């Protein structure tokens, strides 16, 4: 029997599951190897996640958790899944929506954005790991297709998905790109986990840190470098926290 793979989403942009849909060349092969049983973005029959009988060998979950209902649904998915993988910045650390100011949620609770939002018990976005045990993570905003396929391949051959433990700078040097920082730009590559093959600096745009901090990153050392580019301490913190405030934005 083929392993059952399920893909679920919460508060997010669906960009990560779109990357799976974008694996055009590999999709037919993937479908021969696994049964994709839940993938609401493209698949009709995948509706009742609370079917008592259903279990999943691998569940990919994207999005952040912002309501009690979502939390309950997430816990049920966890119960039914052997391996659960957090997919993308929202699932790993809350994503861009963690930048919403606290007072906006207060205003929402006071009914400024309408009765329905007031009634809905929205809380600040939380990553999956706040509520459940996450087995593996696929970082990025969005995830890299290559890393998704590698994770599936690893799990199908009883291995473990592996993420690089070096920074984006390492990959950028390997590609022989001119350094964005040395050319006067703003780049977070030095503290961000690699694996994207330095996607943004390769196109002469500074890294925005969507993959979160590389293990052992010295975030403090980034501040004087970027302050030289005219950014204030708050600017730098805002930049670090754009996708991963739980991982990077709390620095300093």
């Amino acid at each position, binding site marked *: 029997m083929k392993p059952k793979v399920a893909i679920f989403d*919460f*508060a*997010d*942009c*669906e*960009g*990560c599951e*779109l*990357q799976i*849909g*974008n694996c*055009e*060349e590999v*999709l*037919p092969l993937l*479908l021969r190897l696994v049964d*994709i049983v839940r993938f*609401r*973005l*493209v*698949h*009709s*029959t*995948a*509706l*009742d996640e*609370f*079917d008592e009988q259903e279990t999943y060998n691998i569940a990919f979950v994207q999005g952040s958790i*912002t*309501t009690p209902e979502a939390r309950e649904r997430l816990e049920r998915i966890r119960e039914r899944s052997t391996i659960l993988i957090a997919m993308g910045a929202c699932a790993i650390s809350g*994503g*861009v*929506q963690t*930048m*919403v*100011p606290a007072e*906006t*949620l207060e205003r*929402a609770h006071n009914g400024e*954005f*309408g*009765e*329905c*939002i007031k009634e809905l018990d*929205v809380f600040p*976005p939380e990553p999956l790991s706040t509520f459940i045990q996450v087995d593996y993570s696929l970082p990025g*905003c*969005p995830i890299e297709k290559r890393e998704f396929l590698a994770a599936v391949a690893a799990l199908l051959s009883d291995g473990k998905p592996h993420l690089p433990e070096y920074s984006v700078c390492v990959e950028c040097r390997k590609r022989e790109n001119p350094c964005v920082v040395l050319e006067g730009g703003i780049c977070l590559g030095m503290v961000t986990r690699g694996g994207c*093959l330095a*996607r*943004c600096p*390769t*196109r*002469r*745009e500074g890294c*925005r840190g969507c993959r979160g901090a590389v293990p052992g990153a010295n975030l403090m050392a980034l501040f004087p470098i970027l302050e030289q580019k005219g950014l204030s301490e708050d*600017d730098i913190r*805002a*930049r670090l926290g*754009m996708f991963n405030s739980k991982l990077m934005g709390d620095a300093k």
Partner: protein
Amino acid sequence: MNYPWKTVGPVYHWDHGGGHTHHHGDDRIIVSHKIPRVEGHGGIKLRIGRRDRKVKDLIVDVEESPRFFEEMLVGHRFDEIAPIISRICGICSIGHTIASIKATEKAFGIHVSKQTLRLRKVIVNAATLQSHVLHAVLLVLPDLLGLPSMFPLAEAQPDLVRRALWLKKLANDLCDSIGGRTTHPVTLVVGGMTDLPRPVEHDMPAEWLPEEVLEEFGKRLELARPHLGLLVDLLKTLAPGIPQFARERELIALKSDADYGLYDGCIFSNDTGEAPVWNYLDYLREFEVPHSTAKWARHNRLSYQVGAQARVSNNFDRLHPRAQEVARELGYVVPCHLIFGNTLAQVIECVHVVEDSITLIHELLDAGLVDEGKPSVTPCEGRGVAAHEVPRGLLVHDYGYDRHGRIVSANAVIPTSQNYGNLLEDLRLMVPLIADRSDDEIRHECERVVREKDPCISCSVHKFLQTEFVE
């Protein structure tokens, strides 16, 4: 105007739990939550009178969590705005990025080079092709053939799905090459582009120059013609089975003297004609609905429609002749007032964007590519409003900046929000015609109408939560 309503192909068998039905007094209540094969999380709640078969309540329930994007932007620097706001929606991220950088450029009084303009138009075309192929072939076509999704479709029509995936890959590769990423693009920045087109990884030789990359894309776009031709041929055989139910409606899309108007133009309504983009607040009037947190938009009537159907209807004469020809082959009459008139318009636009991209690439190569370097931008205080046609319709971004180039106010008018009223009007007209069917069939048909409109629920909930229609 009322045509007999018929279902095309067998209604596929519902798995457990697609929704449920219960009775309230004499009324039937039909619920569908998390409608499959649409972008975002949404459902329908429908209450039909048992005896008179009238629709008593109809709610499009948006189950997406609000993410408060406009609130998020305030205080951020101009170079962070597009990367943040593109995260409203992965599928529409190129559209949001284009609208965002255009609005910022308007605020700062920046004009971009002709080369940038052409490259942006090519990426807009590619994003449109990607989105339309995904929707028309992989999401809607299973409905027309009575299949539950693209996976059984791949077994029933392997050749078609292979060609559709080829087209989708071509479009994605173009976005990747020009934009740096298919989702949440990298090179599209305020003032220009950071980089010229690059070879696609594992697909083109890494040492290729930008000119060689564009030449290759020009060739591949020509190869796209027969693939699209096959899709058009299949749709020609299916078109007679598409329900011909019509409701006269207001259709709004951008209109331009220069081209088909995807990248820029003035706002045009088939009811009232042209209006300038900066005046959008008067034109696309958003209003509160009782018992609802979502804003709807209206202009001249109760509702209006944006998207491919509106664009093809309003700008037919600006379509590439090949696309016009396909429209005639499909029997597509403009202005199109059909409930199921959007998917065919998308296929017509697929032909147009392929031809237009070939032309643009030739123009780029003839003019010669110039490395313009990363643009430098001097921010200033001001307001910028920009409109752009994303695959799902008219998108407006409106920013206010302080003198340091930080956002003080932001507003975005999203196509799907504009289409909600139109969708509910269509459903309200359709349901009585099929009220004698089983609950499952009614639910299925309602979901089809929602899917036909290609809603992007993630986008529509950038700020608000739920729309509701109460008779």
